[in-house]
Structure formats: C-alpha cells, structure tokens
C-alpha cells in the first residue's frame, strides 16, 4: 500500500499559457534541451510559485539552481512520440504538440523500439543530462512518458481503433514497440534520477517520488472489454517492472475500467479523472491511493465557493483520506488565484479535522 509523505497532499500545475502570461517563460525547444535554460527556468518557476503561493506551500523560498532534467512544473507529454518518429511542434505559450504520423501498415510493421543512445531526439536529452550531471554531480526530475495507447495513437492515428477490430496483429505489433520504448525510456531515466513520473503529475513527488505513473488518457475512448483484450497485459508487464506503479486516468469514467485495473498486481496509485464516480472506483480499488483530479476548466470559470464544493465532493466520496490527494493540472492563464487558494483551503480544513 502506498503511504503518502504527508496527509492529504495537494498539487496544482499551471499551463504554459499561465507561465507565459505572468512570467514571460517560453516553451520552445531550448526550454527542454538547453541545460542552462532548463535549470534557469525551473529555478524561476519555483521562485515564482513561492512568491505567489508560498503561503500554500508551493514553490521554494530562495530557489536555488537545481539539475532538473525535464519540466516538472507543466504537463507536457511528447518525447516518446518524438523518439518514435513523430514531428514535434514547439510553442511560446503551450506545451509541445505531437503531429500525428498516421503511419501506414508497412511503416507500422517496420517500426522497432529505438536504441536510445543513437536516437536523435533522445540523444539530445542524454547530452543535456550529461551536461547537468557534470556540473551538479547529480540529477533530479524526470520526463513525461506519455503512455502506451497515447503514443500508439500519435503514431497510427484513429486507424489504431480500426486495427483493434480489423488488424489486431498489427495493433499488437505497434503496442509491443511502444511498450518496449516506454520501458527503455523509464528505465533509463529512473537509473539516472531515481524517479519517472513527477513530470506526469507533480502529485507523485508529494506522495512518493518512486511511483511510476502510466498515462492512460485515451483509455476512456475504448471499452473495458477492449482494454482487457489489448492493453491489460502491457499494464501488468509495466506494473511488474516499474513498481511502485500507478495509472493516470484523466478521463471522466475511471469507474468503468476500475475492475480491469483491479486485476493488475502492484497497481496501487490512481490519478482519478474529474467526472469519474469516485465511490465506485473506491469500491473496486479499496486499498489504492487516489489522487483526485479537479477540472481545470471549472476551476478557471467557477466562483471560489463552487471550486471548494467540487473539492469537497471529491473528498467526501474518496474513502479513507489517508489514501487521498487533491490535484488540478493545466490551470490556464484565465484562472483566478482565489480559485487556486480555495482548493488548498478545503484541504487544510480536512487536514485539521481528519488528519
């Protein structure tokens, strides 16, 4: 069972538009690959969070430069798709975007898990890590590893869903290659920094940085039966190799697939999407740790009182609060500070009475 470092931790992650508007940070290639800019930006982000929300426990007082290898203050999953050949588009005020490769049957069948040391994109990452390690003597942070079906969709497009019915052997080949690539990337990163998934959701850092959190964003698009048939075996493999293990299910319906998740040995942590039936999830997964996700859109447009109601609703349904956390990811530049504070106030109240 996952034991959190603190009772009812809370995390928020702001969207690049928020960082750009308030602090002028841009998210071009150098933000991800230039060692000096990497360190300077992460330092500036921690300092900015402390200046704005230090009273909530965010950021770092007198933020010092630290060798953070990947962005842990935004949500940005793109590297594995890039490593496997998708074109990546970078923006000033948004996370990098993967251009779907829409690979043909022949291209899929010719695809192999790359050698990371010689892969053009990943070798740039390695080079950046080497430079940081040489300067600081250690590394921290990690890289968002995107998730199995998410990457497969980026490579094949929606044809993947047709393949599940009409060409399952091809779909399985693609999933094999993506799974092997994700294992290589996470194993490599974990070896050098000792974590894999703070960049998937910062809440991992607050609960237990050793957790590998597998992004299952697109699982909401398929039936539990299809998950069982095509993805469950990979989930089991990943869970056995990357323990402690968790799943990020940001879709609105984790309750539908919760019984499938219950069949994965070692799957102990869930990032539960807003809109999911939390009580049903808890019933299917009684001992798991739940990171309960608020909707960033609602947090942006509701009143602070309504945001507090959303947070309370999640906590009421969560079961034992020793096994729960709150988070909101991708808060954009229209989000009022007061709404962010409302989330933390609810958590503080629950900590006082239940902790």
């Amino acid at each position, binding site marked *: 069972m996952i034991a959190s470092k603190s009772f009812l931790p809370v995390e928020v992650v702001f969207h690049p538009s928020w960082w750009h508007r308030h602090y002028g940070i841009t998210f071009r290639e150098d933000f991800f690959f230039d060692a000096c800019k990497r360190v300077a930006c992460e330092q500036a982000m921690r300092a900015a969070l402390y200046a704005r929300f230090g009273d909530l426990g965010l950021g770092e007082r007198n933020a010092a430069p630290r060798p953070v290898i990947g962005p842990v203050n935004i949500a940005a999953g793109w590297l594995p798709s890039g490593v496997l050949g998708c074109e990546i588009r970078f923006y000033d005020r*948004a996370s990098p975007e993967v*251009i779907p490769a829409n690979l043909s049957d022949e291209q899929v069948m010719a695809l192999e898990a790359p050698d990371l040391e010689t892969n053009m994109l990943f070798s740039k990452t390695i080079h950046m890590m080497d430079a940081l390690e040489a300067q600081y003597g250690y590394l921290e942070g990690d890289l968002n590893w995107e998730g199995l079906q998410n990457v497969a969709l980026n490579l094949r*497009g929606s044809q993947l*869903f*047709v393949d599940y019915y*009409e060409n399952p052997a091809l779909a399985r080949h693609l999933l094999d290659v993506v799974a092997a690539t994700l294992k290589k990337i996470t194993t490599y990163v974990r070896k050098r920094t000792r974590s894999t998934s703070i960049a998937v959701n910062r809440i991992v850092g607050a609960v237990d940085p050793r957790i590998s959190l597998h992004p299952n964003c697109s699982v909401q698009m*398929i039936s539990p039966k299809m998950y069982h048939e095509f993805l469950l075996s990979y989930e089991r493999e990943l869970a056995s190799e990357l323990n402690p293990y968790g799943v990020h299910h940001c879709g609105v319906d984790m309750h*539908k697939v919760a019984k499938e998740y219950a069949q994965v040995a070692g799957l102990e942590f869930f990032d539960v999407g807003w809109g999911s039936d939390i009580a049903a999830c808890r019933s299917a997964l009684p001992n798991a740790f739940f990171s309960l996700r608020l909707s960033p*859109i609602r947090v942006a447009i509701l009143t602070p009182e309504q945001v507090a109601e959303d947070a309370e609703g999640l906590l009421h349904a969560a079961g034992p609060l020793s096994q729960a956390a709150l988070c909101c990811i991708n808060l*954009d530049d229209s989000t009022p500070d007061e709404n962010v504070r409302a989330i933390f106030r609810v958590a503080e109240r629950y900590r006082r009475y239940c902790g």
Partner: protein
Amino acid sequence: MTEQVLQELYDSIIKGDRKTAKDRVQAALDAGLAPDTILKDAMIAAMTKVGEMFSCGEYYVPEMLIAAKAMQEALAVLKPHLVQTKVKSEGKAVIGTVSGDLHDIGKNLVAMMLEGAGFEIVDLGSDVTPAKFVQAIRANNPDLVGMSALLTTTMPSMKATLDAIRAEGLKDQVQVMIGGAPVTEDYAHKIGADGFAPDASRAVQLAKSLVSAKRRV
C-alpha cells in the same frame, strides 16, 4: 425480401461490416428500392442506433468509428442515386478543429456521424483559422458551423472564430455548435455559441435541433 435487405444493411452498419454494407446497398438498389428509403430506413436508422449505443455506454469510439466508416462506404455506393432522385439533405455543416489544434479524432467522428445522419459536410480539417471558417461560410452557405478543440489553450480560438463570423455579419446565417474534451456548456454560453455537445452522438441530436430551429425562424 426488400425488408430483409434493409435489415441486413442496418445490421452491417451497426457492426461496422463495410463489405456487407456496400454489398447490401447495391442489393437494395437492384431490388428496386428507392434511394431515400434505403438511406432513411436502413442507413440513417442504423447510425441513430449507433449514437444511442454510444450514449448509453454500449459503444465506444472504436465501435462508432467502424460503424461510421461502414456508413461512409455504403453512402458512396448510394450517393449517385441520391443525386439523381434529388433527396434533400438534413442540412449543410461546415466543420473543423480550431486554429492551433491538430487533434481530429473527435471532429472526424462528428463529421462522419453527421454525414450518417443525412447532413452534407464541408470538412475544413484541423488547425482552421477564423478566416478559413468565414471563407467557408461564404463559399458554402451552410446551416451550421461545428468547431472542435481538444486543448484548453485552443478553446479561445472558438471565441475568436465566433467573433470573426459576427464581425463579417454572417452569424444570422448559421447556427454554431462547439465540442471537444475540455469544452463545457458554460463555456458555450460564455462565448455565445448556439449549442454544445459532449460527444459525437449528441452532436447529431444538437445539429438536428439547431437546423430545425433555424429553419423555423
């Protein structure tokens, strides 16, 4: 015999069996059935059922996608005959994923479902600028404009597009509906869209009601 052919066509679309769907359309035509009967009684009925199955959680995106593809291929066989008999469409829709957003699975699904429901579709693709939407409205005179966004950061492009449509004096000519994972009903109200649909199935219902409201005016 004719009822059996229509039933087989209906079943093949629901199952996403493209080959049988095409074959059964041809069989229905060969049996002398009117093209609009084939379209409405079997094909549109099947896609309506697919939409219902999606709404109640029996179907997911893959099932809807293969059904829509079967519908598209069957429709390609039927289309020349529909043109000849001048079957009236449910309406014309210009659809696209808004500027800055390359995600097209949801948009494609909505386009296919609308086509399956008898709409004429002008698909502008993804990363469509407000100017391109305006140009397409001028060129195609649609009843409806559908905008999709998957990213919270591209949602403002929906407002920018609506503003451009208003600025060009075209808003009275079209109903505007929006959708996509982060989009909400509240957001649709906020930017002045005529409607919001949370998924492709409900997009069809919304499109029908918006076009019908427009035609009543």
